[in-house]
């Protein structure tokens, strides 16, 4: 069987205890460790301290052309979301159907916008003018959003429509990726890190937004 043949090849090839990789002493803890790691795994750099993570997040988002607007509560976020979507002549939105977002969805429905929840057909989703989601985390260093999949949080909502509107709590903003991955917890089937609008510079080395995913990402930041 190829599995055993391949592993045998690896064992025959392996540089063994004398190699630089094996020689390094010390072991680092890990939030997910299920098996004891072989000795010699280098320790990870500590998360950075970058001053106020929220200010940095907003700053770095601006560099990506991502607008961030701050609101005190989910109610104001609902109103602002409706206004921002109206400005973009959005009639149909794909959404995450989560309790956190309930006030937003309610507001959108009340405003006559067609809301497509989980379970909508892909053909319908593909016709949505915008996607509205929350985000598990924000990463300040890069203005990255971390979105987890689950039955209420389909993956395609943040991907198919041309506009992606994200509602994020300011207290969920971490300094950098190290901080995110040291958090532990169970991984969803899909954890997507999103940093700005979809883009490509393949053709003529010219930057184009909205290659396959959204052309625009809008973030409403709740709190603080």
């Amino acid at each position, binding site marked *: 069987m*190829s*599995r055993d*043949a*391949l*592993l045998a090849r*690896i064992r*025959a*090839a*392996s*540089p*063994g205890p004398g*190699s*630089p*990789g*094996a020689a*390094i002493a010390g072991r*680092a803890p*890990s939030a*997910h*460790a*299920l098996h004891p*790691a072989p000795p*010699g*795994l*280098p320790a*990870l*750099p500590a998360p950075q301290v970058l001053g106020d993570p929220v200010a940095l997040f907003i700053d770095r988002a601006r560099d990506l052309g991502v607008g961030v607007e701050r609101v005190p509560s989910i109610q104001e976020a609902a109103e602002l979301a409706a206004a921002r979507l109206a400005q973009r002549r959005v009639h149909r939105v794909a959404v995450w159907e989560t309790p956190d977002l309930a006030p937003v969805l309610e507001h959108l429905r009340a405003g006559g916008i067609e809301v497509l929840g*989980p*379970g909508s057909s892909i053909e319908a989703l*593909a016709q949505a003018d915008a996607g509205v989601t929350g985000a598990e985390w924000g*990463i300040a260093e*890069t203005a990255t959003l971390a979105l987890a*999949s*689950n*039955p209420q949080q*389909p*993956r*395609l909502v943040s*991907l198919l429509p041309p506009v992606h509107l994200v509602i994020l709590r300011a207290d969920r903003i971490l300094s950098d*990726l*190290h901080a995110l*991955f040291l958090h532990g917890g169970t991984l*969803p*089937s*899909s954890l997507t890190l999103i*940093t*700005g*609008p*979809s883009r*490509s510079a*393949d*053709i*003529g*080395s*010219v930057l184009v937004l*909205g*290659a*396959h*995913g*959204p052309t625009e990402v809008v973030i409403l930041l709740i709190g603080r």
Partner: protein
Amino acid sequence: MRSTAPPDPTTVPQGATGHAGPRIDMIGNTERAIRDRALQDALGRALPVFRQLRNEMAAEIPEWELLRETAARTKDHVLAHLDIYLSQLEAQVTAHNGVVHWALDAAEARRIITELARTRGVRRVVKSKSMTTEEIHLNPAIEAIGVKVVETDLGEYVVQLAGDRPSHIIAPIIHKSAASVAELFARKLGVPQHERPEDLARVARETLRAEFLAADMGITGVNFAVAETGTLVVVENEGNARLTATRPRIHVAVMGIEKVLPRLADLGVFLRLLARSATGQRASVYASLVTGPRRAGETDGPEELHLVILDNGRTRVLADPKLQEALRCIRCGACLNVCPVFERAGGHAYESEYSGPIGAVITPALRGLEHASELPFASTLCGACLEVCPVKIDLPRMLLELRGRAVRAGLAGWMDRVFARAWAFVMGSPARLRVLGGLGRLLQRPFVRRGRIERLPYPISGWTAYRSAPPLAATPFRDWWASRRNASPPDASGPGTSRERDGQ
């Protein structure tokens, strides 16, 4: 690596795939490339921008060097315990309802994937950019069983439509102008001849959106695979890899054995290094962390997830203490962007999906040096690649190592052999240098015009094709030194030569 036993100097890696092809004509290819004006313009425009962005992004992180060092050591650690980490990865992927397949070579990987397509009634396949699937020539195999396969990365889509090959790890059509893409789309897709890249991208987006909706299998590469969680990480900017891994009912991910990382937290190091090194972004637009297929109650995501773990020559590199370091590579392309030879030669000259300095090492290592013996010589050994490599691969050292092996295996040209032996003979004793230097001074006379040599004979005519040459000085330094020592006081004779003789 330097501390372990040296390899048998006479061994040359043998081709792994069985279709390593004829010898790569790197010298001829580069001569053609420098005469291709459009290619030179495209590379000369794009690469300095890549370099500048990368430098800015590296400078922005104070602990950049620590990240590089950590990444290099982590990769070395994984390579030293690869069997353990791959077994752990397999167990975790399986625990999350994924299926793991092992492929010893390209043919086996193709067989696994086409069998999956056949047994599951697949009609249409979408693919996101993956160097590994390029390496195993997957697309023709899928087409051969009557299944349509579409590349969905904008650049790879253009490559596929044009019947071309990618020429850069992360910028596949860096060799093509927007105008040539416009012409291609008009011809192949029957659309008007758009001039602006954003219009061309829109055409591709619309065409490919339909392909995504219709596809029943999606094939991606893997940037990193996390052993402790069974998580597969795919990094991109366009969103096509997300669509490929989400929409079709079957997701097949193909990875080389070296892609495994121990911990989820290692991604904090590697994702930061990759984006900043590759495209000079703080982060790539999308990093998809896939842990198993869709779970109960989820409304999207694939129903099946298959991971193909590929050897295809890698274990031979692993067994080679002097080349093993090449398996640290995370395919960022920074060494291509900074390489002055790549900037003139372009990716196609390397006749491999892996080009630039890393290609000049990996292609001979994977395919066999006898097929690619000119590649390691295509470098001035300027060291720019080592300086930017996020995992600190000592490419100049490995290029020199491969040059040495090429010579020992008798793969050097006659000109090189004559030159090296003659040089070692002349320089082997100061007396010989004196006598033969004197002879050279006589023989060069017919070639010297106004203190310069404008034409040298074959086989060193390449020098005077682009520059004049200085003649041997009338009085070598050693003679000046001897006369100075004999004269007294020491500096009375003054400098005994003139600038003209130095060719200046």
